[in-house]
């Protein structure tokens, strides 16, 4: 959504510099994606009067003498058919940039040149498209002589030196009111601590919802010829229709200030009627639609229009304004003439009832529709108009009538209101919320005075009765997002600025440290010290990956709406993903590496938890792979398991593989072991089946393990984990001995009293009587 600052300033007194305003809007209301600087877009473009206009024979060109406010007339050659003596036009002076091209890579600079070899042309008379006010290229724009004198800078006449805010719509989804300039201005007033009132501003649409509701109640039954029927109030809370009858030609199409507003807001001026509905929408957030009255009646086949709002029936078809024929579904809301759909409600009008240059009479629609239905309609039919963007935020029903009235007012030079029908089956009562100022300050951690709180809320038109700090608040009709006192508290905090809340430490103890986090942290430190690399792979995997590891896909939970067949299953174990990454890295090539991952896994056999949700466990998978090593890889994987668990003071034993659980499937049971600590099963370590290794195309030296970190955590010696990682001096020492291992160990214990000593390896050459024992010592 684009918002012109010049337009905004007509509705709110802005007391801060523009950059500060943009910062405040970003901090307190909505994300401002960008600011488009148009302060020089219309430099050197002037209002001029065409004094003489002579056709150049045998061409479509006209030789004009124009008055640009200077002493001498200037000669311009103009190709537009509508140029004529006496008119006011917009003149782009030589050296100026064509506004429509300012954002292009090479902006088009207008010069002075000779046409047809003999007619000097200075600058150009501009069309709407060149001025970036729409696509109209049929002629040059004409300016109302009541608005300007020759020589006036165009930018001054139409307030074109402007900054345009580019608003991020998604962050304003809960605020339908802010999708109209008035609602946005009200918020800006609130942020700046200014009172907001529509009384002294131009065009009072939406100014007084209470009066509108009363008027509506009195009008609802008055009409005779125009009938509105809403089949289901849940799809349409209010439908106002107004018949406008033509009593004269709409005024000549001058370039108007509204045209410039439409353009700056990202819309295109089309014709007087459509422009009026669009302008009112931009101003109030309430979209409007105009039907050709006579076509509408003809479709219905009755004497007078009978408007029916209902859900479409499956199979019904409708040709839209853009000429596209769509098939409707049972979610779409349609506007019917009698029983025949003529418009896709909230989204787009139909071709059958479109207004055109011959339109005599109009039905003006101002209504609200279910945002949920419209959201589906939008996605189903791919319609992303400014109107449906507003409807899908849930426009409130309070202002449909006043907006229609103001729109009719904009067209009153050509049309008169003949009749009004206003179907408003469920008048919604205003919401009331009670909250005390001490509750507000208590939750925000602020010390705002009662007066400041009341004024802040009143500035954005909440009505507040203060009874000794107890605030009885009536929520304005447009605030569909306020229901409970926390909403009011948030409102006060936001409008006065969260950045004004003084930071303070929480006055309560911090939460207990997450033991699993600490365990993982320690695991990472240990694995890092032994040279392993942590990886992160997807929890969603393909059936192919499972099968390569020998696992069954039916043991995996399946994602119903997965984005790709490759991400359809939830993994049962970590190791298969690591084997795939081992292949990637061996191919690079890396000759030696160890990869591990810590993540959640899901096995169907574990069943569901008490909430009926699959049980998940935290696993650690590990794979070590080398390309040029003839030794037995089992010991390398076992080494890592031992080192890891040793750090947590968990004594383990390695037993034959008996389990058939998912983590042991890829392992070759004859060259693998189950990891147990006392009675607790922790996982499996060893080499992989040859078939698995070949499926992953990996070199022979390959082993790994998969352990259950939840089980490990259950065994962790609290003394060690929970403290920050201990820093100990570490060293390895090898001794050659003829004696026993126990003797060698005792010797080391004497040499390093108090140190933690563990054997790393024992080696005895075939022809030697000595064995070499390597110890790892941590002082």
């Amino acid at each position: 959504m684009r918002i012109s600052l010049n337009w905004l300033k007509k509705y709110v007194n802005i007391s801060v510099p523009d950059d500060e305003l943009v910062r405040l809007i970003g901090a307190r209301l909505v994300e401002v994606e960008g600011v488009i600087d148009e302060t020089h877009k219309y430099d050197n473009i002037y209002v001029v009067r065409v004094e003489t206009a002579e056709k150049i024979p045998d061409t479509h060109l006209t030789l004009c003498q124009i008055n640009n406010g200077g002493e001498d007339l200037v000669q311009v050659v103009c190709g537009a058919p509508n140029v004529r003596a006496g008119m006011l036009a917009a003149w782009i002076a030589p050296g100026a940039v064509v506004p429509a091209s300012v954002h292009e890579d090479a902006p088009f600079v207008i010069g002075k040149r000779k046409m047809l070899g003999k007619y000097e042309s200075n600058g150009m008379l501009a069309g709407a498209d060149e001025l970036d006010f729409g696509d109209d290229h049929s002629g040059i724009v004409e300016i109302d002589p009541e608005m300007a004198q020759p020589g006036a800078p165009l930018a001054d006449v139409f307030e074109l030196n402007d900054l345009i805010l580019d608003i991020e719509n998604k962050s304003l989804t809960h605020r339908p009111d802010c999708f109209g300039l008035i609602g946005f201005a009200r918020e800006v007033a609130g942020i700046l601590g200014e009172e907001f009132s529509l009384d002294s501003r131009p065009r009072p649409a939406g100014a007084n919802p209470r009066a509108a509701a009363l008027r509506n109640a009195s009008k609802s039954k008055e009409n005779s010829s125009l009938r509105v029927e809403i089949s289901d109030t849940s799809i349409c809370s209010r439908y106002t229709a107004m018949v406008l009858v033509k009593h004269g030609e709409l005024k000549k199409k001058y370039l108007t200030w509204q045209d410039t507003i439409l353009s700056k807001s990202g819309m295109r001026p089309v014709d007087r009627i459509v422009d009026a509905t669009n302008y009112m929408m931009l101003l109030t957030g309430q979209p409007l639609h105009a039907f050709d009255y006579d076509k509408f009646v003809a479709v219905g086949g009755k004497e007078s229009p009978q408007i029916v709002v209902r859900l479409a029936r499956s199979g019904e078809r409708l040709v839209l304004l853009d000429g596209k024929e769509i098939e409707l579904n049972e979610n779409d809301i349609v506007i019917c003439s009698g029983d025949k759909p003529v418009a896709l409600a909230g989204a787009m009008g139909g071709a059958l009832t479109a207004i055109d240059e011959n339109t005599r009479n109009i039905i003006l629609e101002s209504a609200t529709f279910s945002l949920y239905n419209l959201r589906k309609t939008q996605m189903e039919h791919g319609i992303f108009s400014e109107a449906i963007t507003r409807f899908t935020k849930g426009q409130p029903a309070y202002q449909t009538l006043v907006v229609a009235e103001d729109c009719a007012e904009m067209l009153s030079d050509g049309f008169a209101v003949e009749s009004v029908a206003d179907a408003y089956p469920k008048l919604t009562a205003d919401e009331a919320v009670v909250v005390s100022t001490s509750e507000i300050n208590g939750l925000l951690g602020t010390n705002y005075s009662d007066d400041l709180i009341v004024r802040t809320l009143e500035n954005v038109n909440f009505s507040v009765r203060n009874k000794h700090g107890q605030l009885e608040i009536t929520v304005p009709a447009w605030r569909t997002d306020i229901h409970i006192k926390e909403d009011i508290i948030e409102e006060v905090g936001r409008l006065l600025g969260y950045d004004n809340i003084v930071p303070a430490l929480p006055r309560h103890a911090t939460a207990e440290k997450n033991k699993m986090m600490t365990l993982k942290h320690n695991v990472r430190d240990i694995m890092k010290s032994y040279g392993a690399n942590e990886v992160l792979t997807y929890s969603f995997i393909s059936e192919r990956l499972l099968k390569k590891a020998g696992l069954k896909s039916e043991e995996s939970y399946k994602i119903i709406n997965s984005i790709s067949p490759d991400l359809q299953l939830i993994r049962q174990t970590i190791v298969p993903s690591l084997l795939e990454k081992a292949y990637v890295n061996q191919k690079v090539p890396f000759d030696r590496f160890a990869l591990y991952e810590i993540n959640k896994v899901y096995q169907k056999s574990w069943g569901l938890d008490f909430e009926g949700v699959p049980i998940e466990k935290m696993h650690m998978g590990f794979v070590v792979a080398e390309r040029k090593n003839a030794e037995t890889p089992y010991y390398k994987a076992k080494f890592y398991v031992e080192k890891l668990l040793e750090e947590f003071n968990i004594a383990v034993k390695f037993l034959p593989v008996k389990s058939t659980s998912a983590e042991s499937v890829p392992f070759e049971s004859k060259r693998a072991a189950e990891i147990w600590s006392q009675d607790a099963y922790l996982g499996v370590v060893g080499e992989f089946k040859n078939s698995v290794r070949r499926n992953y195309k990996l070199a022979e030296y390959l082993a790994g393990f998969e352990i259950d970190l939840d089980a490990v955590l259950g065994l962790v010696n609290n003394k060690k984990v929970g403290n920050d990682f201990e820093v100990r001096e570490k060293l390895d020492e090898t001794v050659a001995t003829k004696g026993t291992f126990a003797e060698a160990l005792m010797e080391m214990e004497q040499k390093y009293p108090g140190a933690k000593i563990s054997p790393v390896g024992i080696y005895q050459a075939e022809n030697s009587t000595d064995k070499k024992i390597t110890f790892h010592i941590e002082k």
Partner: protein
Amino acid sequence: MIHPNVLKMAGIDPTKYHGFAWGGGIDRLVMLRYGLNDMRYFESGNLNFLKEFN
């Protein structure tokens, strides 16, 4: 701030307790810090990438 209804549903008295919830997209911050242009590197498991951070 957590909506009081959420606390209620979780069996927590919203008049006694309130909650904050927030999260940071840590990978996006890392992308900014190291000038990475593709988030998928993080899940590539490629040692060439991982060793950049050793």
